[in-house]
């Protein structure tokens, strides 16, 4: 009996040893075109420089996975890319480690929105309106045009969910970008947004994954769509005549976090520090049209790249910043109302 136990122990040690010897890091991102850009700009250079093997996992932003890992104290993810509302909620609920900023860099080097107790902003992205210029003679210039099915007949693509769509609906109804969240916070404002969405409902084709809307546009399933700006830039490079309308776009940040209880906290900090350097971020922005959060990275980019970024002055002039705090408070109620509205 005893010898059996010993044998089992020896076997388990033998199996775990190679894993221990090789410092391994698991980085989780949203995959797709964005994942490819990260692979080239962050993952591969970091592996070469540190002789570390990185396992990349793609996910869809499900906080449930992280919550389950943290609760079971079996955290296998070391660095995770999360969206703004999940950062503040997860940080409040103790899902993420508090970061040691001394290991990451100087807070002053980052745009203010990128600095958080639990996370470092990694890029600025935007949800924009895009259209297929081969199929539309006149370009739509506002959300009111997006709603105008007389002048622009055809289907519209929108992301399935309340986020962004309620803001777009209010802007289409004549609310100024600066007033959108003030209006949406009231009961009448939410009613107004849903009423406006109902107008367009028969013409909406919903999408769930970021890769879908450019496909819809190219295939001719929709004439206009809401879409992440980086996906359109990628499709343009493939030779498709897709155009972005930046008026009334909503920009937001994605962040790096470390799930609480990660066994590779040191290496995770090193990775985040590396991915936050101006050089690495500039390299990332050259791969996909998302803007760096490290202000020094902008100087390393040429004008052609800069003009495509959500933070370019011409693009950001009439844009709206996504309000994390509003959605952290109202998100659950509005999403539930959206689910009920969409199901009717």
């Amino acid at each position, binding site marked *: 009996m005893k010898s059996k136990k010993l044998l089992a122990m020896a076997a388990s040690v033998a199996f775990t040893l190679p894993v221990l010897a090789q410092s391994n890091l698991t980085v989780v991102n949203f995959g797709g075109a964005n994942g490819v850009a990260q692979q080239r700009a962050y993952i591969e250079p970091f592996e070469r420089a540190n002789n570390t093997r990185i396992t990349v996992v793609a996910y869809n932003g499900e906080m*449930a996975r992280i919550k389950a890992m943290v609760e079971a104290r079996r955290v296998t993810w070391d660095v995770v890319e999360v969206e703004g509302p999940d950062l503040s*909620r997860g940080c*409040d609920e103790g899902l993420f480690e508090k970061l040691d900023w001394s290991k990451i860099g100087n807070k002053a080097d980052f745009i203010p929105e990128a600095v958080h107790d639990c996370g470092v902003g990694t890029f600025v992205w935007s949800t924009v309106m895009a259209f297929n210029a081969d199929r539309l003679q006149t370009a739509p210039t506002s959300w009111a045009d997006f709603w105008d099915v007389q002048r622009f007949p055809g289907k519209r693509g929108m992301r399935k969910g309340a986020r962004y769509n309620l803001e777009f609906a209010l802007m289409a109804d004549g609310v100024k970008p600066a007033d959108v969240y003030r209006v949406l916070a009231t009961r009448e404002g939410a009613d107004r947004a849903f009423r406006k969405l109902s107008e367009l409902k028969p013409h909406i084709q919903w999408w769930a994954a970021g890769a879908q809307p450019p496909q819809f546009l190219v295939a001719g399933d929709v004439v206009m769509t809401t879409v992440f700006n980086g996906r359109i830039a990628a499709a343009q490079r493939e030779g498709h005549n897709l155009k972005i309308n930046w008026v009334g776009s909503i920009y937001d940040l994605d962040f790096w976090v470390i799930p609480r209880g990660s066994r590779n906290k040191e290496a995770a900090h090193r990775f985040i520090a590396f991915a936050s350097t101006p050089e690495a971020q500039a390299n990332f922005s050259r791969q996909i049209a998302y803007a760096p959060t490290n202000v020094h990275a902008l100087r390393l980019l040429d004008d052609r790249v800069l003009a495509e970024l959500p933070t370019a002055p011409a693009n950001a002039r009439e844009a709206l910043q996504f309000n994390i705090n509003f959605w952290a*408070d109202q998100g659950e109620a509005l999403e539930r109302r959206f689910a009920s509205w*969409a199901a009717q």
Partner: protein
Amino acid sequence: MTSSTFTPINTADLSRQLGRAQRRKQLRALALISPLLIFLLVFFMVPLGSLLTRAVENPEVANVLPLTGKALADWDRTSAPPDQAFGALLQDLGSIESSSQAGILARRLNSEVPGARSLVMGTYRALPLGEPSSAAEARAALVEHDERWEELPYWQAIAKNSQRWTPDYLLASIDLRRDATGKVMAVEPEQAAFRAILLRTFEISLVVTVVALLMAYPLAYWLSTLPQRKANLMLILVLLPFWTSVLVRIASWTVLLQNNGLVNSFLMWLGATDAPIPLLFNRVGVVIAMVHILLPFMILPLYSVMKTVPANYMRAAVSLGSSPLHAFCKVYLPQTYAGVAAGSLLVFITSIGYYVTPALLGGPADQMLSYYVAYFTNVEVNWGMAAALGSVLLVATLVLYSLYRKVTRSELSLG
């Protein structure tokens, strides 16, 4: 040993021996099925039990705000809350050990009253608010920090959730809610969804079952008339898609069904239609793909039953003067009822839990209940709500199954 000698048989002894042998046999049988029994217990009953408890468990507020709950116990929930409640709240918040507990409290209250998250977290971060010494001072301090503490809904939410167990998740999953005083009522029409979704789940499953049955019956009949070798080959063809990943099959349906896909191009080439018919992101696409995926579950039970029906019976009926159709309805069909029942039940119950297919091929009005279970689990991280929806689905399925047994008067046999 004893039986070989000619001693008179002691009946009492014999019956004891027989009894022992019988018990040994039973024990051996039990030992044989014990792996399965333990497996079922560990991997089926325990998760099911935890699902059902999660649906009524409500520890978040009770754990973190025990004193506040006590102070609010006698409150009528319509007038302003007593001063003691404000004092107790400050005391409770002050004795929170890790900030993650505050976050969990904030999430729970926010799902009840939108805005409670920022109220609770803001107050928690601003502690100790000048360390007030009396309950009245605590009230003043809290209201001064955030005047929302004067609003009743937040306090009503705390009072309502101070119990460790709650019917709220289950009520919400059938579009009911408790108001501030605990009276059960319907939710506002704009928030109501789940009854319609449950109904839709059964509707889609029923349509899929009927279509699958109509397609599988002739095929299974044809298979059962083929010689064994050919039948086996055909069965492999039936099973081939069964071995392909569901996602791959869904992706190929997307290619086939989209506006400029094969099906629409073919229809337009035929001249059957001028503009492409929308087949994707609506009910049609969902039903087509689900029928395709579930067809083998219908064909196999039907085939196995039809194999046992002797062809002579039909011939006998026809030779005795019955028309072929009449003979089929009176003689053949009743003998395949067992296969029809087993196949239909199998397909129907499997469809009820479908999630990936409607999520990828359907529009928002084609999502089934499991989609919302996944939504609350993954996106909202509201596991109480997910468990409640799961329980509703479980109960509804059990009710339907018992109805089915009443109607068909048969045990489920998948043989």
